[in-house]
């Protein structure tokens, strides 16, 4: 620091006491009435001078959104945090029960049981498929992953204001670890899903299901779904952080998506029964068939089941990969653009 600098910036370094950045002497108010606090200080430096001082000493401005590249690098360096936070959240979820981590398996079994009982046995909604138990179980398990990612992603920022106000880290950590923790709980659920799928074939009226080489593609399908869900969680986190009211609407949206995605019965075949114009029917059918959730359900079913109406399809894999990448990239960028505002209100 040169000798003339302190005068320019209005701060003298010769004071033995700490820097007093104010024009008014600190002790001035002590003589006044003790009942009222001293009047607000008037800074002795102007805003421009302070900014110049900050620049001169190479200080970094806070609360400025980092460039995308830097943000990605920062996020990548926090991968261990994302992983540990995810596995801890998944573990803590079942920690307060007597059966503990066993619930990670029991919960999906009970869930599948309810849906199979109501929709498969009582309502017989899936008459168009040979093995409706496998159809419903796969649909329900995979869809629950999507739904939990959406609701979890929505809460990942808005529900963690305290955390955002105490620690500094790329906020994208939160939605990512939320979805990763759901993936953690999905792994035991997938084992249950495969077991039920296989066992259902031994029931009299249901088509036998065999373990084929196609089963090896299951992790790939789940990985695509994971990437897609992370993108969804990014979008939801940003939207709900801006407008908390959206969280109340989400459950209804998700229920509509559930019935429109063929989770419980093949929805595409129902479109043909609708009374509408030929082109309109084609458009509605196309949307229902190729929208992301339906595509991912198709992929998992085509891998695990030997259903004639759901043959393995390269086109569907390409579409699934495209949806996953598209949602992830758009979601990430949308989320990043709000980075400096999370935790304000």
């Amino acid at each position: 620091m040169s000798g003339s600098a302190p005068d320019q910036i209005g701060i003298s370094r010769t004071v033995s006491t700490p820097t007093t950045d104010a024009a008014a002497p600190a002790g001035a108010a002590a003589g006044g009435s003790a009942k009222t606090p001293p009047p607000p200080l008037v800074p002795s430096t102007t805003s421009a001078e302070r900014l110049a001082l900050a620049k001169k000493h190479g200080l970094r401005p806070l609360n400025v959104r980092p460039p995308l590249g830097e943000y990605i690098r920062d996020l990548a360096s926090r991968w261990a945090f994302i992983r540990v936070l995810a596995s801890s959240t998944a573990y803590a979820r079942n920690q307060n029960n007597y059966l503990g981590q066993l619930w990670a398996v029991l919960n999906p079994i009970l869930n599948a049981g309810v849906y199979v009982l109501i929709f498969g046995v009582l309502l017989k909604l899936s008459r168009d498929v040979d093995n409706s138990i496998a159809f419903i179980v796969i649909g329900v398990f995979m869809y629950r992953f999507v739904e939990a990612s959406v609701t979890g992603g929505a809460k990942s920022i808005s529900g963690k204001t305290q955390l955002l106000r105490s620690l500094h880290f790329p906020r994208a950590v939160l939605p990512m670890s939320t979805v990763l923790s759901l993936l953690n709980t999905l792994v035991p659920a997938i084992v249950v899903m495969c077991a039920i799928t296989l066992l259902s074939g031994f029931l009299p009226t249901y088509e036998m299901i065999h373990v084929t080489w196609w089963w090896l593609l299951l992790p790939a399908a789940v990985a695509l779904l994971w990437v897609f869900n992370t993108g969804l969680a990014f979008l939801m986190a940003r939207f709900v952080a801006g407008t908390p009211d959206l969280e109340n609407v989400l459950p209804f949206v998700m229920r509509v998506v559930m019935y429109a995605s063929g989770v419980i019965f093949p929805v595409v075949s129902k479109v043909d029964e609708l009374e509408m114009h030929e082109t309109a029917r084609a458009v509605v059918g196309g949307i229902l068939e190729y929208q992301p959730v339906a595509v991912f359900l198709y992929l998992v079913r085509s891998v695990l089941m030997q259903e004639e109406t759901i043959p393995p399809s390269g086109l569907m894999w390409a579409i699934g990969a495209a949806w996953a990448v598209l949602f992830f990239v758009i979601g990430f960028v949308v989320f990043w653009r709000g980075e400096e505002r999370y935790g304000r209100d």
Partner: protein
Amino acid sequence: MTEADEHMDFDLEIEPEDEGEEALETELGDPCLVVDDLHVVYRVIGGRAKKEAEKQGTEVREVEVKVPFWRKLLQAGRRHVGAVSEVHAVRGVSFTVRHGESVGIVGINGSGKSTMLRAIAGLIPPRSGSVHVSGEPSLLGVNAALMPQLSGERNIMIGGLALGLTPRQVEEKFDEVVEFAGIGDFVYLPMKTYSSGMGARLRFAISSAASPDILMIDEALATGDAAFKERSKARIEEVRARAGTIFLVSHSISTIEAMCTRVLWMHQGQLVMDGPVHEVAEAYKKFILAQRPAMDPARRRARQRKRAAEAAARRAAEEAELRAAEEAARRKAEEAERKAAEAERKAAEAERKAAEAERKAAEAAAQGPAS
């Protein structure tokens, strides 16, 4: 704002062990934090606090959000639907802090201390103005990241990673953190089983493990026993010796006097005083005492006695807890020793028997050829 704020109104706590202590004067370096005309505004959704707040002199105003027509229709019942208020918590604060300074922030409740601390830590985005820092400021507050259902061990990992350490660094610091927190084998139990003092100590130990350039503390020292306070003070001096900077928000004016060299006094979101610790502390004490309703000397003495008794009881309880833990550890060690001795004795016996058997065999062998 912390929960503690809500209960204590005008308070002037004196911690007896802090009396007469003074913060170390260190050489001041270059500026490391510049705050320029900082304004922080909270958006409060779901409340129209204007009238209530005005009564109390707080700055709250309703937002004039430009709303489309359809939304205005929705806002027909404006009191409960779509109510948005703003709280102007920090109103134009500017100051400069240098390397090696230890800055205390005082002010009555609701004066914007905690909000400002979070804003200059970069955790609450300001409405306008800017904060410039060197290095990474760190607010003591990993508690938000910690999970009560999980063990202290797991939480040390989570907290350390949240602070930006690598897993390897956390493992290296693990023993140090456990020792600093003084929780011993409790580290392997879920955090919800900890006493509040143990939890607070572990949190402080984790958050200060990352050795930040700018350490910000919000009432964190209020918990913990005297020994722990001593250790935290040493940790703070350590940061300052490395030319780091400390910010401390506390209700205890004696803690501020013992640990800080400079004090900022905030009132209604503005800086009203900024200077060396003694000057500001004196003025602030006068102000607080003037705010208090007059109290007759007998009542004041009674109150002081009550406080002293409470403090003593608290300390005794903590000591008892510590002693109980030690006792348990000792008993465990004794048990282990006893078992070890037993095992040794058995081993010796077995050896003896083996030797005897050998001896007999040898005897038999000797007799064999003889007969």
